[in-house]
């Protein structure tokens, strides 16, 4: 397969870019932040987003979606990365849609997927517990009780957990932290007795939640996939999420870079445009090369997920690690080259820096994925 977008994909990109650029420029995020909006995103905009058909890209056609792939979802996230539009897209349309399509029973799919596709149901994936992303270290307990289970433990960094109508929870039903066997995924109603949700406004003015489970009941119908064998499903869904976030970081990096190069061509010091200084030219050129190479690695990961899912882990680790270091460099150079202006809240560059830090941490930072790659290659 050619490592470029095909015609349909280019059209999707143009339509997503047009919509997001028009309806949700960076000022949209700024307004929501300044107003301390309780939801953290615009439900009205989300409805329009669904009407454009973006929400069901990963939902099979039989359940009201368009049955497309990770490349298409990545295209939308790249455009989201350009304006930092806050939306439930990653949590609901990518993670939950993938988890249900890949692991759900027919009944579960029929119940949730059409609503994900039309934007009427919001969902969130609860995985992380400690300060770093370590899915194998999941400790939240699932104890058999009657026909179902009782969940007890804490989850953190649950993206959009504060607005979710459905939680997908990774829990340990057997074994101990660190073991691959013994993990189970559950579909849980956030209104269940024993669940306490704290919205955590994050540095990037996007939202996550800390969720405490205290003997929260879930019946057997709430099991997603197989009991004790949930890790493969979880890891697959996480890989889709990782590649999707990597794509968001490519959009973010390219946008910051574009703004920075424009500034180099406008700002004068010592009677010259600062873009005439070789010290800055070479750094700009290095960053350009980094972004182009990362873009190729991310598209490779997305295509591999669509074409050969079970062999995509290495390509995903490469993509997420590269995207994290590239975005980190892009925002640092962005702030530095904008000088004092880059430090002001009034200027948008800071929003990109903050979002890049969150994306880096989401589903494993560059170090995590470098370690994963070394493990895959047995060294």
């Amino acid at each position, binding site marked *: 397969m050619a*490592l470029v977008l095909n015609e349909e994909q280019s059209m999707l990109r143009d339509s997503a870019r047009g919509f997001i650029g028009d309806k949700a420029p960076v000022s949209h995020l700024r307004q929501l932040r300044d107003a301390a909006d309780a939801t953290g995103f615009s439900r009205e905009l989300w409805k329009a987003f669904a009407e454009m058909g973006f929400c069901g890209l990963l939902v099979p056609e039989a359940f009201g979606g368009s049955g497309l792939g990770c490349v298409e979802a990545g295209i939308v996230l790249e455009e989201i990365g350009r304006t930092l539009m806050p939306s439930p897209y990653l949590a609901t349309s990518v993670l939950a849609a993938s988890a249900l399509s890949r692991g759900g029973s027919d009944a579960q799919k029929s119940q949730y997927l059409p609503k994900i596709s039309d934007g009427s149901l919001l969902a969130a994936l609860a995985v992380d517990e400690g300060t770093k992303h370590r899915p194998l270290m999941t400790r939240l307990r699932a104890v058999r009780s009657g026909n179902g289970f009782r969940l007890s433990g804490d989850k953190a960094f649950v993206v959009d957990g504060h607005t979710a109508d459905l939680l997908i929870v990774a829990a340990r039903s057997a074994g101990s932290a660190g073991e691959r066997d013994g993990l189970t995924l559950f579909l849980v109603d956030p209104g269940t007795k024993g669940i306490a949700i704290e919205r955590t406004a994050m540095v990037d003015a996007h939202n996550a939640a800390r969720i405490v489970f205290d003997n929260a009941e879930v019946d057997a119908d709430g099991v997603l996939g197989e009991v004790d064998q949930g890790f493969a499903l979880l890891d697959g869904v996480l890989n889709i999420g990782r590649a999707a976030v990597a794509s968001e970081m490519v959009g973010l990096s390219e946008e910051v870079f574009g703004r920075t190069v424009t500034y180099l061509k406008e700002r004068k010091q010592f009677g010259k445009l600062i873009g005439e200084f070789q010290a800055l030219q070479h750094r700009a050129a290095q960053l350009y090369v980094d972004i182009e*190479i990362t873009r*190729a690695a991310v598209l490779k990961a997305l295509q591999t997920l669509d074409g050969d899912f079970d062999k995509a882990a290495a390509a995903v680790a490469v993509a997420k690690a590269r995207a994290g270091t590239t975005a980190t460099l892009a925002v640092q150079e962005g702030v530095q080259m904008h000088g004092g202006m880059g430090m002001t809240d009034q200027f948008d560059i800071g929003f990109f820096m903050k979002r890049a830090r969150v994306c880096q941490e989401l589903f494993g930072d560059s170090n995590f994925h470098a370690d994963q790659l070394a493990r895959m290659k047995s060294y």
Partner: protein
Amino acid sequence: MSDLEKFRSETRAWLQANCPPEMRKPMTSEGDTFWGGRNAKFSSEPQRIWFERMRDKGWTVPDWPREYGGGGLDAGEHKVLREEMAAMGARSPLSSFGIWMLGPALLKYGTEAQKKEHLPKIAAGLIRWCQGYSEPNAGSDLASLQTRAESDGDDYVITGQKIWTSYANYADWIFCLVRTDASAKKHDGISFILFDMASKGVSTKPILLISGYSPFCETFFDNVRVPKSHVVGTVNRGWDVAKYLLQHERAMISGMGERGVGRPLGQVAADSVGSDEQGRLGDPMLRGQISTFEIDEAALSAAAERAVDLAKAGQAHPAFSSAMKYYGTELNKRRHEILMSAGGIDALEWESERSRGGARPRAWLRTKANSIEGGTSEVMLGIVAKRILDLPGA
């Protein structure tokens, strides 16, 4: 089955049947590379067989037109052939500056007579070429070159000196930049000309490098007489040809790190520094360096694949080969720093049989030229800044 899938299965079958097992192993020394030329010698029988079979298919130059000795493959078929050769670990049957550099320039700028004269001999490995570009006072500032070509009837008479001429002492012919108009601005008085290294007045002197090898030469021209018909492209417009050729040279050099990959770095390192009880490399910092390197290497290889696909789709930026050259050469230097670190004191032996004559440290030192030859990293970044980013005054 689509035509391309059919081509893939036929190609795979042909390669399986025709590539000798010895030619599917990673190259470990200079002798494993076959360069062709009037004085060419094969280092082994399998090397000869493999070269001749590929040559007869036109697959020393798979995408050149058949009439010039090529395989006539389109871009899609060429990609399939490369993929199938890579999957099998098949070596390149013929290495040649004629293939990588001069050929593409002749195909674009050569006259029909020049193409017919030179391309088939390149494809068949009969003539080995070298590149006369750099001069003692024209390195990064290549266009300031001073080698003179004086008009004398139907000939030019060429006098001057080139330097860093790779394998000039083994080459049969040279493609050379000369100044044909000394009064014009520096980019405007240059011509691109071809001549036989056996011509009267040509001499070469190898330069001993830090690796202990002498792949580069000083090349001297003392009133060398060359027919004017040997100019490629328009007289005094040689800079256009030179730049076009440089794009191909840079693409070639950027791919150097991916060639002859051999054993995975993690395993090479594990052999010398050992592993812990969980199977992780005994030196955690080195382990991090290796995995970070492998991430960047995988990303670069995706970018190389994408560059080909973008070119096919007509979306490639002509200066992108400079970006790839910069990144690929810096990455290759990193690979060899890691190999040296992984090798520890064993990698310091310079002469012993055990170290195959110091192969590892010599290769490490050789890579330091990668970010200098064909345009330094700094020149590459300058080109990206000017031609791609459109920065002022670059």
